């Protein structure tokens, strides 16, 4: 840690004598106030106050600092100096993640010390240690996600304001809240262990959450490392992303989320496969919206094909392409595993048709996302695509249902109990239209523009 210049620079910036003294003083005064209000007792109330201070410092302040750590370098025009240095992407990744937040952690650890003091006579040491670990690891996840999302955004734009930072901050919160919530409820006040089923085995919930938090903190750090590599003009192949997908899909498949009565009603399809498939679809949308894409990339890919440079093609191809291949393969597996029709909660399900329609909707949506990126240049293409898709899956079909035009919802989402014509017809037409537009945009913005240049 002593040898990481980025970490040391952050130490110089963050740990001035004034700040080192002010942080414990402010926390101490606030905690003392709560202690006095609580009748000079250390108990659950003071522990909640310490936890509240921790959350304010770590999740709000810390996630903002982490998300801003590279953005501030760009705004201050010092980022190029770092990119030109000899620091490796790994050192820069952890140097930024833990260096930029070191002062925040200083405050957070003081809060956790007060939390420990408040609870030590009430809870067992093991339980208390695990609760504190949940807090700390959730903080790491929040910071890592905030930094990761901001670095992903840097691939697309170089101008940032407060709005963007708040946006990345929210991503950090979103990543941390599930672990924090489930972890803290993993050992409830009644002293009873909560358990979870993972691949049909019973595990203590809090232990599972702690392991998941550690593992996903590492994945987030790996993600930041990959982003740093991209910033340093190093080529990232698709393999790390695909490994993350495989891991996350396997995790999702092992967790029981569907209500038991629904899972049990799926006779020939494992609820595990269904969970994994759902996670694969989510990750496909995430990468399709998140990754950089545009005419320059496609011209470059076209050039690699012309040169038969397959290695460069594989390294540079958007991750969405292998993801769509995986979705296609997973859809085929689901079709093979399942019966064509069955009933869930007294509702008939035409599962084969619905699965095919689901694949076609994903194909349509990915085509739409790419259409916007190829057809016009704007750093807001992906957020625009996201908003259009969100509307098409929520407001529009719901409006049709309220108008009594239920069958028209086949235009907007997969039908579960209709015939082939209504389930597949509209989406097939949409796919054809979208990809005709993609082909047209490709000819104009990729092929013709390159020939003109």
């Amino acid at each position, binding site marked *: 840690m002593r040898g990481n210049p980025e970490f040391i*620079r952050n130490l110089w910036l963050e740990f001035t004598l004034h700040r080192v003294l002010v942080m414990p003083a402010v926390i101490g005064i606030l905690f003392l106030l709560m202690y006095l209000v609580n009748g000079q007792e250390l108990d659950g109330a003071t522990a909640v106050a310490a936890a509240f201070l921790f959350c304010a410092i770590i999740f709000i302040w810390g996630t903002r600092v982490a998300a801003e750590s590279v953005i501030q370098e760009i705004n201050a025009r010092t980022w*190029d*100096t770092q990119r030109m240095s000899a620091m*490796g992407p790994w050192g820069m990744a952890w140097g930024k993640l833990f260096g930029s937040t070191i002062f925040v952690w200083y405050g957070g650890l003081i809060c956790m010390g007060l939390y420990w003091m408040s609870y030590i006579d009430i809870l067992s040491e093991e339980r208390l240690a695990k609760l504190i670990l949940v807090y700390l690891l959730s903080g790491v996840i929040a910071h890592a996600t905030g930094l990761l999302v901001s670095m992903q955004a840097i691939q697309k734009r170089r101008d940032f304001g407060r709005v963007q930072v708040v946006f990345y901050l929210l991503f950090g919160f979103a990543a941390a809240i599930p672990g924090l919530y489930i972890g803290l409820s993993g050992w409830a006040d009644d002293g009873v262990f909560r358990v979870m089923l993972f691949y049909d085995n019973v595990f203590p919930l809090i232990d599972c959450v702690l392991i998941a938090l550690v593992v996903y903190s590492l994945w987030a750090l790996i993600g930041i490392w990959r982003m740093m590599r991209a910033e340093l*003009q190093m080529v990232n192949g698709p393999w790390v992303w695909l490994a993350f997908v495989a891991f996350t899909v396997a995790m999702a498949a092992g967790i029981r989320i569907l209500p038991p009565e629904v899972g049990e009603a799926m006779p020939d399809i494992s609820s595990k496969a269904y969970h994994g498939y759902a996670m694969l679809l989510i990750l496909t949308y995430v990468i399709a919206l998140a990754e950089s894409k545009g005419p320059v990339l496609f011209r470059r890919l076209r050039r690699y094909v012309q040169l038969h440079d397959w290695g460069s093609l594989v390294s540079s191809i958007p991750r969405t392409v292998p993801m769509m291949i995986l979705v296609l393969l997973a859809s085929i597996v689901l079709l093979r595993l399942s019966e064509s029709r069955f009933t869930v909660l007294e509702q008939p399900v035409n599962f084969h048709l619905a699965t095919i329609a689901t694949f076609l909707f994903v194909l349509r949506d990915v085509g739409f996302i790419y259409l916007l990126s190829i057809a016009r240049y704007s750093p807001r293409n992906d957020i625009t695509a996201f908003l259009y898709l969100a509307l098409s899956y929520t407001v529009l079909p719901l409006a049709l249902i309220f108008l009594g035009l239920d069958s028209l919802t086949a235009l907007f989402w997969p039908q579960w109990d209709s015939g082939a014509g209504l389930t597949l017809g509209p989406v097939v037409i949409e796919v054809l239209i979208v990809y005709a537009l993609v082909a047209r945009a490709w000819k104009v913005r990729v092929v013709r523009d390159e020939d003109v240049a």
Partner: protein
Amino acid sequence: MIEVKNLIFEYPTKRALHDVSCVIKTGSITALVGPNGAGKTTLIRCIVGLHGPFSGQVLFDGVDVHEHPRDCHRRMAYLSDFFGVYDQLTVRQCLTYTARAYGVSGDHVRTVVEAAAERLQLTDRLREKAGALSRGLRQRLAIAQAIVHEPEFLVLDEPASGLDPEARQSLSMLLIGLRDAGMTLLVSSHILAELEGYCTDMLIMREGRIIDSRQLTGDLTDARRLRIDLAAPSDTLFALLEETPGVAQVSVVDDVATLLFSGDIAAQHGLLRRLVDAGEPVAGLREDRIALQDAYIAQIHEYDAGKTP
């Protein structure tokens, strides 16, 4: 030192570099000039590996900068036209951080920091916060950061912008000093008169293309153009020069003669003595540097005329 091969770079809305090729020789100070939007900054950022090209290569002593960026970055440095420094750190901390970031090992950090500070006349400012420095001093600090690891190749994008005349003069002297210390420099600037003072080579860019690449001065052992000023016109000078060893491309017009001369400084002294001994009315002899501004304007006009149907 640097070899750019068929470099193409595209922004989402336009192609910024069109099949650019050029060479930057070891020990040179190369001026990169061209109008706004010509692609100078884009070319510089591709050369130092901050922009990945659409196609083409940048070789730094034979190593592909885009395939091995970190290896090359240890040996080169770049100062952007819009640079930043860490305002909250002291000058010493800024230099120490940069030295460590460039891989200078712990024992040598203090030595290189103090050497860079001394070279940029910042020794008495080491304890000051960077944010408290004037524009000129910040510029010096930024250059000190760029050279703290003693790079072999230094790239400066518009280094003189925003500097007062005294600071510009000081910058010129510094760049010459760095070249003399063994660095190769690439300098982009709009201020051609200043570049003329220290640049040895020039690349002219227009519309994403290198339209001219030339050497401005030669090594004293290379052929170089000399100008002889006469006190009065001479009818015998042309013949005398024509038969002098090492002289070529003689031109005598009124009271000015120009020639291409091959030979070292002693040979040049011999030429002058020969002319004086022959009774030629020599009033002065000097190297005829190619005027940067004239060469630039001429090339731009030639390029534009070539484009006109």
